[in-house]
């Protein structure tokens, strides 16, 4: 049984590594965008699914990370990795600020507060045409000057694997335990000695920094940034990815993001109707599978296929 699982994992690993050679340029770029969304969705799941801080402003941090890196590289000609690092640090700082200001808010109030923050940032990017290029977009230096996008794919994979490993380590540590305790009951967590203010702010800072990292990668991959990346529409897509996959499990959120991005592209010929389908899927998931469709599907699969281990609850 164990051997079969190892063989299956190895085969999946080979498939993932060989992917750029198996698909055309279009599907390779879809895969790179899916990896970008996977990092964003996992970090949103960390903030919402584990720490219980419902934010609708996560894509604002993606845009902040992307614009920070793009502008620093353009103006000061600094190396791109340094620009991306600056975006990560700035997102952590601004995320701490948003987390601190939002400390007294819960549930829908916190969500509305983060929507407002997100819109303020988006409008600044739209309005400051001289600096950001406004709605016309900002040209961003590419990470690689190659004909193929394969290097982006592998860098994206490394970023995703590194981010996921860091997030899994975090949620498995005592910090993760405190995040979940705060999610479950703040008063009880405080009575148990958990420094609620510190950990709520930390959750925002950490999740925002991963969003900033993903944003930097996105900008330097696409080569152009528009303020729409931080729009509520984009946020809705990330929420759908996390909820359909399973917001209380990092791997489930990642798979939800990869699957939904692939579906969005596969059903592109159906135009706006595909979004109606995703909306309905989201509603059904919330109603019938609150831990996400993936957990439900995996549970069913484990019943009928003996080599599939039963899902382990991570949150």
């Amino acid at each position, binding site marked *: 049984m164990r051997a079969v699982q190892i063989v299956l994992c190895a085969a999946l690993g080979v498939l993932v590594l060989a992917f750029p050679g198996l698909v055309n340029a279009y599907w390779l770029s879809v895969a790179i965008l899916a990896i970008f969304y996977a990092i964003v969705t996992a970090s949103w799941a960390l903030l919402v699914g584990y720490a219980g801080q419902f934010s609708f402003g996560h894509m604002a941090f993606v845009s902040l990370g992307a614009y920070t890196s793009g502008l620093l590289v353009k103006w000061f000609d600094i190396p791109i990795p340094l620009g991306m690092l600056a975006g990560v640090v700035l997102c952590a700082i601004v995320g701490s600020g948003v987390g601190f200001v939002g400390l007294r808010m819960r549930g829908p109030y916190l969500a509305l507060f983060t929507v407002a923050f997100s819109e303020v940032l988006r409008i600044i990017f739209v309005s400051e045409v001289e600096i950001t290029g406004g709605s016309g977009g900002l040209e961003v230096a590419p990470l690689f000057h190659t004909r193929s996008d394969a290097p982006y794919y592998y860098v994206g994979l490394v970023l995703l694997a590194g981010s996921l490993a860091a997030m899994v380590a975090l949620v498995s540590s*005592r910090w993760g*335990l*405190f995040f*979940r*305790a705060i999610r*479950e*009951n703040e*008063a*009880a*967590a*405080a*009575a*148990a*000695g*958990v*420094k*609620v*203010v510190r950990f709520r702010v930390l959750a925002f800072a950490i999740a925002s920094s991963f969003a900033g990292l993903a944003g930097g990668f996105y900008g330097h991959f696409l080569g152009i940034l528009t303020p729409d990346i931080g729009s509520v529409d984009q946020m809705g897509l990330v929420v759908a990815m996390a909820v359909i996959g399973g917001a209380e499990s990092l791997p489930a959120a990642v798979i939800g993001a990869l699957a939904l991005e692939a579906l969005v592209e596969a059903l592109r010929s159906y135009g706006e109707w595909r979004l109606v389908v995703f909306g309905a899927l989201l509603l059904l998931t919330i109603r019938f599978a609150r831990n996400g469709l993936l957990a439900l599907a995996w549970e069913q699969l484990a019943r009928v296929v003996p080599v599939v281990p039963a899902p382990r609850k991570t*949150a």
Partner: protein
Amino acid sequence: MSALLIETHALSMRFGGILAVSELDFAVHAGELVGLIGPNGSGKTTTINMLTGHLVPVQGEIMVRGVRAHGQAASAYATMGVGRTFQITQLFGRMTVLENMLVPGLARPGSKKAGATRAARRHLEFLGLAALENLPAKNLSGGQQKLLELGRALMLEPAILFLDEPFAGVNPFLRDEIIVLVQKLHAEGRTFVIVDHDIEALQRLVHRMVVMARGRKIADGTVEDVRHDQEVLRAYAGF
């Protein structure tokens, strides 16, 4: 006289125009087992909330082991050795019983996971919950949840433990079990302040009673003294 663990001077709390607690002077020494009683709305839970950092008093002073604690967060009170349970049980429902215990265990400065896990299992054994350590807390019965909340507070190794209505909504069998557990813990040297309406249960348990009515302390003494206090009788039965 043993060490003074908690002490208040002229402690007051106001919610809008309502004075919930008025100029309360209160002290608990190490090793005491104190009952805090009073009719509904007398300010007992508000007092506990102030003494554990969940409410900041509008006036007055709180000293914990000789250190001014006024205005500190609830987590700081916990770190100073003030544990509590809640009137309505507050657990981390979707986390396992063991995880519920580990949260305070790992929140203690300098704690290690192995040591916290050992302590958690020891307390769960004492409370009769050892077999349930992998169950989500929300799946426990109401009585088991009360015990788990007590266990979680014990994980802080508290110098003083406030139990807010531990007998509310529990059957007589479990009530007796809780009384025995508290007596055992007290015999080990733990200090308790117990808030409850169940005067009969408290009489069996505590050595000293503090009675509150309309936000004020109206009596403080031995159980026998308090039972015959005219102001207490008036507050409780309108005599």
